């Protein structure tokens, strides 16, 4: 059984075809890298996998469960988590509160209007542990607005990981990071256990290529090359897309 299977996915915005019969198979535990030039439709593909954009056709399944008609929020409950290219967190709240909100999203307690949120020990402890895991435990009580961009990126990853995903979609996790911050995030991603399947979009080849088991090259809404690092690098179409004729 594949972790993520996408077949014949199509999507158009008016006359613009952004996804053209795209096929993608990701094995359980695999680290799959998606690369491609700007405008290739990589983030649009992620948005269709998570259900934030509804595809016009095709199929998306995760561990055998068809997702096409599953509401976006339900896909998270099925084990699909993601991070965003542009960090979208809760800047007025503390790091701990951010991660607790992530945990609460999968907890029935989220409908409870009577208990006190910050007194829920099981959420506090798990959120603190997640922040410890990404090296931010010491500043858990700091408002997010007082943290660096790299720290926010790690909070985002902690929020995704704490939900215990089966499939994790990382949209340019190294974007905007300094060399040191990039190294921190790289080390963090390396610690994610293999029972989490990871699909990552990334432009920074230095760090991304080392991470990936398999790589897909996207161009104008379709996967034009797929294979191991060596296969993709050696493929003339990859060079064509990146370097031109």
């Amino acid at each position: 059984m594949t972790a993520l299977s996408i077949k014949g996915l199509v999507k158009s915005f008016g006359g613009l075809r952004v996804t053209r019969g795209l096929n993608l198979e990701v094995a359980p535990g695999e680290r799959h890298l998606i690369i491609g030039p700007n405008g290739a439709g990589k983030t649009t593909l992620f948005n269709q996998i998570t259900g934030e954009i509804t595809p016009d056709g095709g199929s998306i399944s995760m561990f055998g469960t068809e997702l096409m008609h599953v509401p976006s929020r339900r896909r998270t409950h099925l084990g699909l988590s993601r991070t965003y290219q542009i960090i979208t967190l809760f800047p007025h709240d503390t790091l701990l509160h951010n991660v607790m909100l992530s945990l609460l999203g999968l907890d029935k307690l989220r409908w409870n209007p009577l208990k006190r949120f910050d007194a829920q020990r099981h959420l506090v402890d798990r959120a603190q542990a997640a922040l410890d895991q990404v090296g931010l435990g010491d500043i858990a009580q700091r408002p997010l607005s007082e943290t660096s961009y790299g720290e926010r990126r790690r909070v985002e990853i902690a929020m995704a990981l704490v939900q215990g995903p089966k499939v994790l979609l990382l949209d340019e996790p190294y974007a905007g990071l300094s060399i040191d911050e990039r190294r921190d995030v790289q080390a963090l991603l390396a610690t994610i256990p293999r029972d989490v399947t990871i699909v990552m979009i990334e432009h920074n080849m230095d760090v991304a290529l080392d991470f990936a088991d398999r790589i897909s090259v996207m161009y104008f809404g379709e996967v034009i090359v797929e294979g191991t690092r060596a296969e993709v690098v050696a493929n003339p179409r990859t060079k064509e897309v990146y370097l031109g004729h």
Partner: protein
Amino acid sequence: MTGRLVALTIGAIVLLTVPLWMPGIYYVNVTSQILFYAIFALGLDVLAGYAGLTSLGHAALFGIASYATGYILGLGAGHTVAIIGAMVIGLISTAIFAALSLRATGIGFIMITLALGEILWGLAYRWISMTGGDNGISLHGRPAPFGIALSDANAFYYATLLVFVVSLAAAYIFIHSPFGAALRGTRDQPRRMNALGYHVWMIRFWAFMFSGLLTSISGILFVYYNQFISPPTLALTSSAEVLLMVIAGGAGSLFGPIVGAALVVIVKSIVSGFIERWNFLLGAIFVAIIIFMPDGLVPGTQRLLRRWRSAAKTAKAAKTRSAS
């Protein structure tokens, strides 16, 4: 004892002793008005401040509960039936309002609530057999729970105070609950909340229901206070007025709407006796608040206090350093 606890204790003592030190019944009645308008503003604040959904039709929900109370009493029912009936009708109306208006957010939401409010305002004028049209509906007497006649101004004040305290406590618990945290999340990052597994629409719907509950409660208190309800209560100006209470006091804070309600009611009921152009004064106060404390009086004052404390601490530290 923390500063907040001191302020709360002083506030509680002041409110509990209002009939003892107020110069006359008129002022006790004004305080009752402040309290039920504060409940109304608190209801709108749940939506506008904590859910980020600004309604311009809340006066319609307020008016529905008032009209329902008057109508049910007019049918010959007792006060208990009238109050429960008005609450149920208010909540059903809120559910319809929510189902229709939550199809949009931002400007779209504002416009739908405004349109719904205007429809009900028009109905209040034209559905004469039900609402009495321009003449409105008059009530004859207030309830007398446990033998305490609320026709007495002081008794009505204490009943209103009790309802106010319960409403404030309910709002506090609601806002600090997991649901309240989720609600604030949907205000700040709805897309992210959806991706985290939250049902954003449903969260907003239940917040709207809680807001409608508080609004209905205040509407019932209003009609018992005035013994009368007529179409202007449902007008857009009433919705705008309570929204101004929320914004002036501080949207997204629990005590902001209370301060906002006090400001508006005091200017309307007391200052207007001394200043003919009191509307001008109220407008000038709002403009000043928006310019100098754009987040409202309560959050703005808290911010100033924090700044002063921080400056005082820095000055003290500098003094200690120079002395050593």
